[in-house]
């Protein structure tokens, strides 16, 4: 399907020279090279499906938000028929940014430079002084609209691609869809954003954040060690002994797909023992989901889960639910269970997009969610918990955002850019017994396979051209 397009960089290196498939290594140069960055914008961000937001951000006809698909600015707008459209936010007249607001409501997006006007679906409405033919004589009016992307909605999440005839979003998700369904399609009411996304800039290459999102589990033990020292995972010194070892929290299964999507499915057994005092093997999925429902779900909402999912998915949700992972190229999800001081557990649901802003800069966007049907006080608690742990002031994620700039900076050294990053910790055991889902699966402590799958797909896209 793809045609080989090996590109030679200015110094004679090819993209395939940067990656060693046998030893699972990637040259550090990949984290900073400006030539690669240009190619990534064309071959990845202008080709794959890109996550842009959630339909509940623009609930009314005429609502819009402005977003980015890689290096391209777009308008995400709802039209009079309630359809969502994604259009390039560049005026076809003389290339002014058409919509300069972050969000709003309008049925006419008018370019302030010379006044050309467009519908929420990107169609050209008209230019001023029609009788003097300001819109010109060469290009027909129906071709003067904003360039339109192909849009797909999934569980209210808005994705778009410039690859108009390419694979469907479902094909792109592949085996990951089975697992994503347990996160994004839990209730009939569906998810809703609790507000607009947080946004902040980090002086780092987008891939430092994104390859970590491909389920790097090892970093949590050291980079997030404080969580076990004084944070939510700290042990009670009298009952459980001292120590900040987070490794018991890292057991479970990991799933990866050929399109670089990754899921860390973390075991709930320890938490269920804590909450019930019973052996989880003796509890049915329904019983387990009732004592420890997924984030945003109350015990009263559990019957709806039982109706919506098959036995395999219910088993997964009550045993090893996906809690952290990434969707290729630049998305991360966190649907995590956070222990509270009073012994209860509160969930946090968040999605991140890491928007490339040049070889040395990314924009971190963080959306916080709950189910529409989550009771208001629980929503409010989840919101606070999420803001305190994730995103801008997040006590977990501030260590991550402080790490990526260092990686990006040191990747420029004449010597350091030639050394390699290693993804050599491998699962060797396949899926655990009774694993219900598809995809490549590894059982036990976190490993590197998920991140390696991310780099493999990066390489595939970077050396392919339609």
């Amino acid at each position, binding site marked *: 399907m793809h045609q080989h397009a090996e590109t030679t960089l200015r110094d004679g290196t090819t993209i395939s020279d940067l990656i060693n498939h046998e030893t699972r290594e990637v040259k550090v140069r990949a984290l900073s090279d400006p030539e690669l960055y240009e190619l990534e914008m064309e071959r990845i961000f202008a080709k794959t499906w890109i996550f842009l937001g959630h339909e509940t951000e623009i609930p009314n006809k005429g609502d819009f938000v402005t977003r980015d698909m890689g290096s391209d600015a777009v308008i995400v707008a709802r039209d009079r028929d309630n359809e969502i459209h994604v259009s390039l936010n560049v005026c076809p007249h003389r290339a002014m940014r058409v919509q300069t607001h972050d969000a709003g409501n309008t049925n006419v997006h008018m370019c302030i430079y010379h006044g050309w006007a467009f519908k929420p679906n990107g169609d050209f409405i008209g230019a001023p002084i029609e009788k003097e033919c300001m819109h010109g004589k060469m290009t027909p009016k129906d071709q003067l609209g904003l360039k339109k992307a192909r849009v797909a909605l999934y569980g209210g999440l808005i994705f778009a691609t410039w690859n108009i005839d390419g694979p469907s979003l479902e094909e792109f998700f592949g085996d990951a869809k089975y697992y994503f369904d347990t996160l994004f399609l839990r209730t009939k009411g569906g998810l809703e954003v609790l507000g607009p996304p947080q*946004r902040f800039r980090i002086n780092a290459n987008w891939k430092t954040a994104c390859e970590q999102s491909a389920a790097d589990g090892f970093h949590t033990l050291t980079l997030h060690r404080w969580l076990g020292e004084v944070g939510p995972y700290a042990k009670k010194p009298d009952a459980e002994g001292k120590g900040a070892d987070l490794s018991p929290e890292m057991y479970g299964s990991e799933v990866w797909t050929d399109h670089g999507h990754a899921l860390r499915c973390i075991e709930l057994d320890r938490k269920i023992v804590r909450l019930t005092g019973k052996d989880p093997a003796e509890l049915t999925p329904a019983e387990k989901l009732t004592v420890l429902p997924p984030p945003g779900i109350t015990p009263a909402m559990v019957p709806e889960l039982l109706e919506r999912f098959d036995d395999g998915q219910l088993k997964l949700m009550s045993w090893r639910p996906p809690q952290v992972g990434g969707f290729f190229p630049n998305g991360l999800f966190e649907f995590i269970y956070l222990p509270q001081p009073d012994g209860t557990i509160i969930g946090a649901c968040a999605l991140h997009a890491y928007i490339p802003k040049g070889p040395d800069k990314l924009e971190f966007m963080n959306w916080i969610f709950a189910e529409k049907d989550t009771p208001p006080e629980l929503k409010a608690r989840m919101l606070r918990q999420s803001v305190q742990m994730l995103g801008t002031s997040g006590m977990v994620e501030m260590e991550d955002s402080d790490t990526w700039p260092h990686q990006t900076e040191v990747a420029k050294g004449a010597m350091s850019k030639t050394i390699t990053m290693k993804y050599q910790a491998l699962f060797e055991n396949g899926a655990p017994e009774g694993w219900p889902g598809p995809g490549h699966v590894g059982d036990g402590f976190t490993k590197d396979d998920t991140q390696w799958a991310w780099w493999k797909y990066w390489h595939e896209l970077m050396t392919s051209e339609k």
Partner: protein
Amino acid sequence: MEKNPLEPRPLPPSLRANRVPVGSPLYNDMVEFMYDEAELFDTLRLRDWIAMVAKDIEYTVPLRHTRATRDQDKSVVRTVQHMYDDYRSIMLRVMRVMDTRSAWGEDPPSRTKHMVSNIRVYRTDKEDEFKVHSYLLMTRNRFDHDKFDLIPCERHDVIRKTESGYQLARREVIIDQAVLGTPNLGIFL
């Protein structure tokens, strides 16, 4: 408009009629509170700062949105915010930095300057609580970077008079940037 249950309780208004004159003893107390607090932040004396914080504090940093002039009321977003803390989470932030050896996001610590200016003080309908409105320009420098992150913002505080001195009872920090130019808020504003 009806209150969104996800938003924090609103601050008392800054009524011009209730302005405390510049230079009056109460005004001077508030200025000294602001300066002392800035010094504690910038010299990493977070435990001493905690002693100046009321147990019922709400500490919030709304998002900013770029909106049309006629929609300026929508340019401050108080559902999802950059920071949404209570006393317990503030304590956790302080313990993280002071009691562990793994708060890497602030270890080594940022070098900061909290520059507080344009201080205006208002009486509120509670006798022991004062509204303090100020500008804050903060510089933040890390590692061997030659550049500073600049965080321009304004603070809307409620300072409460207690038997053991003044305490910070409420703070809302409204940042000028819609997209923050600093990699996290691992520091207090």
